[in-house]
Every structure is written in C-alpha cells, then in structure tokens.
C-alpha cells in the first residue's frame, strides 16, 4: 500500500497545490490578514513546507517549530475559526486537483493534529 504522499503525487503535486491553495488563502477575507507578506516568494515557500507536511511527505516540522512560528499570529488574534478556514481551503484545493474524499480526510486529519501547537495551547 503506497503512502498518502505517494498517492497524492509527491513533490509535483505539492507544487500544484501550493499555487492554488496560497491564492485561495490570499483572497479569503477570513484569513488573508495573517498572510499579508510583501514577499510572496518567501511566503509560498512556507506554504510548500506546510503542504508537504499535511500530505504526509518528508518534513522537519516539530511541535516546537509550530508553536514558535505562530506565536506572533496568536498574539494578533489567530484562533480556531482561522484554523477551520485553512482546513476548508485545503480541502477545496485538493478537490480541485481531483483528490478523493478519503485522502482529503486524511490530509485534514494531519492538519487537525497540529491545531494545538499552531494555536499555542
């Protein structure tokens, strides 16, 4: 049985997903204030790291990174509703790419597993 990351299509699929996902994020009024960086190249590299992780791919994320990386955003009001929105946009991205519901649920599950760290709880 192949891994989730392989089923989704590996790095090429991550690249395709980043392009769609990050555009959705920037256009979504609920969350875009947290992604308002002038350097979209740097930001999209971060999104690639995030998507690689939730695709079950090779990554070096630790709970500590997640906490530290989002602390300043939590101070600015990042909460559960924003995490919900991100998981929703992630699902929409995968649907557009033709990923099946079971795999989308698995990706959402990985994203869900870091909710506590992201929100510094």
């Amino acid at each position, binding site marked *: 049985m192949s891994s989730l990351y392989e089923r989704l299509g590996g790095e090429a699929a991550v690249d395709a997903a*980043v*392009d769609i996902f*990050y*555009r959705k994020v*920037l256009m979504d009024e609920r969350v875009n204030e947290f992604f308002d960086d*002038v350097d*979209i190249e740097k930001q*999209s590299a971060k999104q690639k790291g995030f998507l690689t992780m939730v695709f079950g791919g090779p990554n070096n994320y630790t709970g500590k990174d997640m906490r530290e990386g989002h602390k300043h955003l939590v101070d600015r009001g990042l909460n559960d509703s924003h995490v919900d929105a991100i998981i929703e946009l992630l699902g929409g991205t995968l649907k557009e790419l033709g990923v099946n519901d079971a795999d989308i649920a698995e990706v959402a599950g990985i994203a869900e597993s870091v909710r506590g760290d992201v929100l510094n709880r």
Partner: protein
Amino acid sequence: MLETLLSANCVVPNSCRAGVCQSCLMQLVKGQLNEGAQRGLKDSWQAQGLFLACQCHPEQDLEIKLPAMDSLRMKCRVSKHSRLNAEVAVMRLQPKERLEYRPGQHVTIWKDELLGRSYSLASVPAIDDDELEFHIRRQPHGILSPWLYEDIQVGDQLQVQGPGGECFYTASGSEQNLLLAGTGTGLAPLYGILRDALQQGHAGAIHLYHGAMHADGLYLHETLQQLAQIHQNLHYHPCVLNHEPGLDTLIRVENLADALRRDWSSLQGWRVYLCGDEPFVNQQRKQCYLAGARLQEIYADAFIRA
C-alpha cells in the same frame, strides 16, 4: 560576515548586500559554510569554495580569502555609448572573449578592483554580434552610474562578472501568452527577453508594458513601435504618469499597475516577466499571481538600489 569584515576595516568589494550582484565573492580556505552562502553561484565556482560574504553567517571558525579576481572577471571594451535622454544612456561592450548568457540576466560591471554595480543585459547574442548592451540610468546619488552615463567613452576598458539571474526566456511553451512589464530601465532586461522570444519564434501573444514618469522616459518608444509593426503578435503599451501637451495618442496616462489591472483580470496560463524597482515588482508579482498566473511562471528582477 560582510558587515563584520567591513566594520573591521577589511576591504571587500560589495554592492547590493542581498545575494544578487555577486560583488562580495570570497573563497573558503578551511571550514564549513552555512547553507545559502553559495546560493546562485555556478557549480564550478561552488566547487572552488567561492561564496558570498553578504550571505555568509559563520557557525564556526572559517579561513577565507579574496579570490583571484582576474579569473572571475572578463575584460571588455566600450564599443558604443549614447545618451538617450537626461537620465538614460545605452552602452555597448565588446567582451574580450564570448560571454555565455541569456538575455535578461545580469552581470556586475566593474570600474576598478572595488567599484562594481549590477546591470541587466538588454542584448541578444544571436542578434547583437556578441556585444553586451546595457541601459544605464543615472542615479543622482549613485557612485558608478553618473560615471557610466556621463564620463565613459568609446574605447575605454571595463570588466564584467557574471552572468546571474533567472529572469529569461525559455522556448518551452511557445504558444503561451507573455506579459512583460517594467518601469524605467527595467525595460533593459525586458528588451532582451522580448527580442530573444521573437528571435526564437514565440507564437503566443506578447504584451510589453513600459512605465515612466514622463514621455521622455519611454526611451525606446520608436524602436518598440517599429518592432510591433513587424511582429503581429507583439503589442506595445507605453504608460506615463504625467500628461503633457502634444503627447503621442498611443501613450496612456496611467499608473502602470492600474493599467495592468484594468487590462488583465485573468492571467491564467500566462507567463509573466516583471522588472524594475522593488516595490513595483513585488506588488505586481502578487497582483499577477492573484489574477491566475502560476508562481513558477512569474519571473521577476527587482532592481535593488546599492
């Protein structure tokens, strides 16, 4: 590392301090470089231990030296120089040996051992007889550009180092539509990219936008109009901020960013090239991405003031 060396009064050539111009090249003798210290350098340079002092954050003791500059820089002779307006001059250099580059890439032009600045290549090897063309904008407080604009003469010797940069045309996707947009001498790399695309027989539409303060700043206006007459798929859109009496009706009085937004609500499937000052490039990169261009198909060259 560069900051430390300079504050200790060590003489290290430097310019952009952002890992772009490759002026602050140094060579590793002993030790381990951090990841990123060699980013953008060609393989053979990396293998020699060359790295950029401005991108080097030592994590342990390093033994370093300045590399032998002669092997890295190419001697050139000024073969043409003409001032097009009060701010912009076109300069052509004849390199001692053929320089391999892609139109739109940049090289560092060195006046002497220490003074160098990065300039984009507007020439196309196959069209311009292997001469290198640059568009020099005279910066009021610049160190090198007033000299390059005002004082340099045909026959003078210079050195160039490079090329670098990834903002150039590739023939894959010849049916794609191209959007080229630049402010000021951001036109230089675009002029190279444009002629390279035409020369390689690009089949899709090419829309070139040039923005300037005044009509005088549209320094290739006639040349580009002529090119657009010859090539059916080329569309030239000159934009200026200030209206003036007798303005050519072809010229739009509109901010370049507004013109682009108005003209192209969807850029899905397009390839985009953006050149000019940093705020313009960064803002447009985002705008074009949101309009549907893929991140990997947006090529940008932001001019960093040294």
